[in-house]
């Protein structure tokens, strides 16, 4: 019994000793003014200041603490600002963020809150509720943020919300190849084995698939070839069956844009999935399915099952797979797996009516992460917090954060080093050893590494030529067919009421359209007899209202 008594005492002791940084921190601090350094000079403050920050732990990283994370040390030594970290594991970061917002117990800053990457509406709501501090008064000449705005005025327009305030600090990143993500990969050795040319039209593509099916390209005497296979909706990056194929008939944006399948025509919002061209696209896909060229698993299997289908068999059996990059179609992390290196992309196909397009991410690099730092109203030194975040945009600091230590993780290269970058020009830097563990903050922080300056200027890994292949394929085959940038809907903020309505309608429309794509293609619904019912159902769900809400938001942003 003594033991139990001891344990009880111990527990009581632990409880008594427990202090919450959250509860005490904010209240006690005086609001005396800090003297900040001139923009661009460090340290930011003479006397060490402390801010609290919510951050996300991901990947191989295990700590944000000064003693343990070498980048935290770099930042603190440079700025003279100590950070009290409130850490959430990535898997649960969203729950925790919502809990903190709901409890009214904010830290000074939120760094990369999850599911907020592109959500202007949520930022607007948090601004309205008085959670976030407006930042525009701190963005002055000399700050890195201002420099970014001078270079990309469009970004400033996007981040300035309808109430006239700017609440979030973005990241400028991206990748060249992600401007056109809806790629189709084809196993090139098969094309060569059968003496076929790269298809350019939907009819040619179908003929190639037919040849894959009938002429035994892997030469094992068995009819085990799968000419075309994809993964189901919501699994895999651009690995869905319709994204690429439908683009030969009508504009069909990919999952990265939330499957909105929407375009601006002379300032008018138009959706694709109620048009006759959409029906023709479905007819084409149904043709592939009926002929046995498209695997029926395409509508049901997950991305992992898809990759196993490509990688698993001892001889290649899969001919073509849609996917955003090589990692969407194959397990590229496995060293002795080399099959993916033989896949090349098929260019967007010309449809029977002459239409040829591909989904386009026009604001790549600008709007893919727009809320990597939010400063709250419980912060006593918002300008210091802003300047701390602004420090992360310094090119050297950004490089250090993302690519690690110069000389250890990467090396800068001269013009005349003879090493070529991803974009084919001389490379600016080369990765020596991927930064692992507590060397950085694992891309969960603001940074200014615009893809054209950095991502495209790195030397590719010769053993795994992923980036240079993606760059070249995108540049040569896809970007020539993107629609006009003005016809792409920019990132927009809705009013909270409209946002709820849009989200609800969008979910319903999206799942109905996706369901019907599958049903029309496998013949469960008839493209002639059931098409009108399909249109009626779209209107029942509220397609008209949905387009109207988007139109209103577009008009307000013009």
């Amino acid at each position: 019994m003594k033991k139990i008594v001891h344990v009880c005492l111990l527990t009581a002791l632990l409880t008594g000793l427990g202090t919450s940084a959250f509860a005490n921190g904010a209240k006690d601090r005086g609001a005396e003014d800090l003297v900040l350094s001139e923009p661009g000079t460090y340290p930011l403050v003479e006397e060490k200041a402390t801010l609290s920050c919510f951050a996300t732990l991901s990947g191989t990283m295990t700590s944000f603490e000064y003693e343990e994370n070498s980048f935290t040390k770099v930042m603190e030594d440079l700025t003279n600002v100590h950070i009290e970290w409130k850490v959430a594991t990535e898997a649960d970061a969203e729950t925790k963020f919502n809990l903190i917002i709901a409890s009214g117990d904010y830290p000074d800053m939120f760094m990369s809150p999850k599911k907020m990457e592109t959500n202007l509406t949520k930022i607007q709501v948090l601004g309205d509720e008085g959670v976030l501090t407006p930042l525009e008064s701190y963005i002055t000449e000399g700050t890195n943020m201002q420099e970014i705005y001078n270079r990309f005025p469009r970004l400033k327009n996007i981040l300035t919300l309808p109430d006239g305030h700017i609440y979030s600090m973005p990241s400028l990143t991206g990748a060249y190849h992600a401007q056109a993500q809806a790629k189709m990969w084809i196993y090139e050795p098969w094309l060569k084995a059968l003496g076929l040319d790269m298809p350019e039209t939907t009819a040619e593509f179908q003929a190639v698939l037919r040849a894959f099916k009938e002429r035994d390209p892997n030469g094992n005497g068995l009819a085990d070839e799968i000419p075309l296979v994809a993964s189901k909706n919501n699994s895999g990056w651009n690995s869905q069956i319709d994204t690429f194929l439908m683009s030969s008939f009508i504009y069909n944006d990919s999952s990265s844009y939330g499957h909105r399948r929407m375009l601006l025509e002379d300032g008018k919002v138009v959706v694709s999935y109620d048009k006759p061209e959409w029906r023709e696209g479905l007819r084409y896909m149904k043709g592939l399915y009926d002929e046995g060229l498209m695997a029926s698993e395409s509508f049901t299997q997950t991305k992992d099952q898809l990759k196993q289908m490509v990688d698993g068999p001892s001889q290649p059996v899969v001919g073509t797979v849609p996917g955003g990059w090589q990692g969407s179609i194959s397990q590229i992390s496995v060293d002795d797996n080399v099959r993916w290196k033989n896949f090349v992309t098929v260019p967007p196909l010309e449809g029977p009516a002459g239409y040829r397009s591909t989904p386009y991410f026009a604001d790549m690099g600008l709007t893919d992460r727009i809320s990597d730092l939010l400063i709250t109203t419980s912060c006593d030194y918002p300008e210091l917090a802003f300047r701390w975040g602004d420090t992360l945009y310094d090119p050297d600091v950004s490089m250090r954060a993302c690519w690690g230590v110069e000389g250890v993780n990467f090396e800068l290269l001269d013009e005349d080093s003879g090493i070529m970058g991803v974009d084919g020009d001389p490379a600016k830097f080369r990765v020596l050893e991927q930064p692992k563990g507590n060397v950085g903050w694992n891309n969960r922080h603001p940074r200014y590494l615009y893809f054209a300056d950095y991502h495209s200027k790195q030397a590719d890994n010769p053993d795994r030529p992923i980036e240079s292949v993606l760059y070249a394929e995108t540049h040569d085959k896809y970007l020539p067919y993107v629609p006009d940038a003005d016809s792409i809907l920019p990132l927009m903020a809705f009013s909270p009421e409209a946002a709820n309505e849009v989200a609800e309608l969008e979910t319903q429309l999206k799942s109905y359209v996706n369901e019907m794509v599958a049903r029309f293609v496998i013949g469960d619904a008839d493209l002639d007899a059931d098409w009108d019912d399909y249109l009626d159902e779209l209107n029942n769900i509220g397609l008209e209202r949905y387009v109207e809400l988007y139109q209103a938001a577009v008009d307000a942003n013009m």
Partner: protein
Amino acid sequence: MVTTLSRKDRLFTAFNAFVGICILVLVAYPLIFILSASFSNPSEVAAGHVRLWPVKPSLMGYRAVFEHQNVMKGFMNSGIYLVLGTLCSVTATLFAAYPLSRKDFPGRKFFTFLFTFTMIFSGGIIPTYLVVRSFGLVDTRAAMILPTMVGVWNVIVARTYFSTTIPGDLLDASRIDGASDFLFFFKIVLPLSGPIVAVLGLFYAVEYWNSFFNALLYLNEPDLFPLQLVLRNILLSSEIQQNELIMNVEEIAMRQGLHDLLKYALIVVSSVPVLAIYPFVQKHFVKGVMVGSLKG
């Protein structure tokens, strides 16, 4: 003893055995698969070559698990929460259950009602969080134990056990010998309650071992995270977000690789402690729960 079974009986037994074996296969296969996969070469697992037995056996997964800093810390933390938490919980549960089992306890109905009320209604996550915070428990180990220390269902099981197995005469007898309530509880009731203590202990231990939600809500300090939270993070965070894909493909590949490497070994490693205590408690288990379930 040899008994002759009728044809019908034999048919019935054979049928039972068949169904039993089917269920066994259904239950055992995933377990065997995970075990085999954990000892296989990760690339073979990723390619889907592992079906039943390990392919190209390797200990890579286990080595990676034990080299991962937060996994080891999580292991220790979970151990601490399990031991301390189980001790506190069992003690508090017994202390709560015993008075409720005494018919002469004033307000017994009322207190029982209070307890059961909380089984059905709760304040919700945010109010609970605010309460925990106002006690200064956020970011302390105590936050893993105190807020959910007593499970009402367990109190009811223990109460029922006491009221059905400890005869009232025993209390009368010890009173005649001059024993106080406390003495009676510690000297008579507890020694007779081995099974229920074992059962409560196991229930609570498993609960503490598996718990991650308290940690998710109340802990901001990675040094305090239990194993389950670390585990969740490794298993779930490699489900790569679509708009992250474009940043650094090598990094993504590395994360995918880590995920594939660790996944099965982690599942095995994190299940071992619970599997290890189970056989020792199991004999009490059936008895304890059965006894508790009789009569209200």
